[in-house]
């Protein structure tokens, strides 16, 4: 089931600003590989779920996945063929506000080739350009 807040203070939100670069959630916190956004967008909960499924299928239930964004913003829409006015529409779907630099997904416990392929498949489900990044490995241990 797509991600959704359990409880909210207000059902409807204003659109807000999407300008600037991400200042939080910009580094790999849990896994070894990550998918980083290069553009700004509202990523819907169904898009996040599609990415999760394709990653999970490609990893064949090995390794671990972290979803670093959460759709906590509701987007309203008016019913079709309705006249203007009569108040704001009903909440239609939920989105996560993503800015350039935000980490979207993280993976660990799998070889890099599988991680790259999983992230490529996930990137196909997203409306923005993204890039694959990996955590720096200590050099002293690399030589060992």
């Amino acid at each position: 089931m797509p991600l959704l807040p359990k409880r909210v203070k207000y059902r409807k939100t204003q659109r807000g600003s999407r300008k600037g670069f991400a200042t939080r959630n910009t580094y790999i916190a849990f896994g070894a590989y990550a998918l980083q956004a290069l553009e700004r967008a509202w990523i819907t909960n169904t898009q996040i779920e599609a990415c999760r499924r394709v990653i999970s299928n490609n990893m064949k239930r090995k390794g671990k996945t972290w979803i670093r964004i959460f759709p906590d913003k509701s987007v309203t829409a008016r019913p079709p063929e309705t006249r203007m006015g009569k108040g704001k529409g009903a909440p239609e779907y939920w989105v996560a506000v993503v800015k350039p630099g935000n980490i979207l997904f993280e993976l660990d416990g799998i070889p890099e080739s599988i991680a790259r392929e999983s992230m490529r498949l996930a990137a196909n489900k997203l409306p923005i350009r993204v890039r694959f990044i990996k955590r720096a490995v200590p050099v002293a241990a690399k030589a060992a």
Partner: protein
Amino acid sequence: MAKILPIKVTSRAQLGRAGAKSTRSAGNIPGILYGKKTQPTPIQINSKELTAVLHGASSENVLLDLAYTHEGNTTSRLALLQDVQHHVLKDYIVHVDLHEIAQDEVLHTEVPIQEVGESIGVKSNGGLLEKTLRSLRVECLPRDLPEVITVDISALDLDQSIHVSDLKLPAGVTALNSADATVLAVLAPAKEEEAADEGDVKQPEVIKEKKVDPAAADAKGGKAAAKPAGKK
């Protein structure tokens, strides 16, 4: 032991956002030098030189032997690279924090933890190696600072873990993390539960303020309940 890397540092007169921007456009990285006995001093480092120094280092928390130039005078100082800020997308270094320390002064920093070998639990039993702690916060003298802390995980089987207390630290190095904190664990392969049907997508519950029923408050008695009634 960690190497002490030499680098040239000069004092910086251009301050603020505009000053930092012009410093960067001149091929330098703006930074700040501070310490227990040092007044915070704006500095600049040649970006190519800093990149070359950090290239090949095990982490960004390295010891630097500064050749600090101020008004034509050059002095030698020992500093720890306390913090490095990168551009969020382009990855270049935006700013550095240098923490001046004395040779006989105990320092606190983070040292990366690196596992060695392949765990039996992962290799033979299909487990997942979970790395909970990737760097260890340590306390030591500058000369004792290790480059990395290695952990041998080859004997680690399913549902076994390594804690901070199990790490073999070099002499003179003390871990500041909790001794029972987990560093690495081998988890049994997880059985993924299938997601529920997408049919009915529930809407979130809206948080509302609870209204106090005056009759129920009177029934309870007590001063707290009587107060709001008196106000009315």
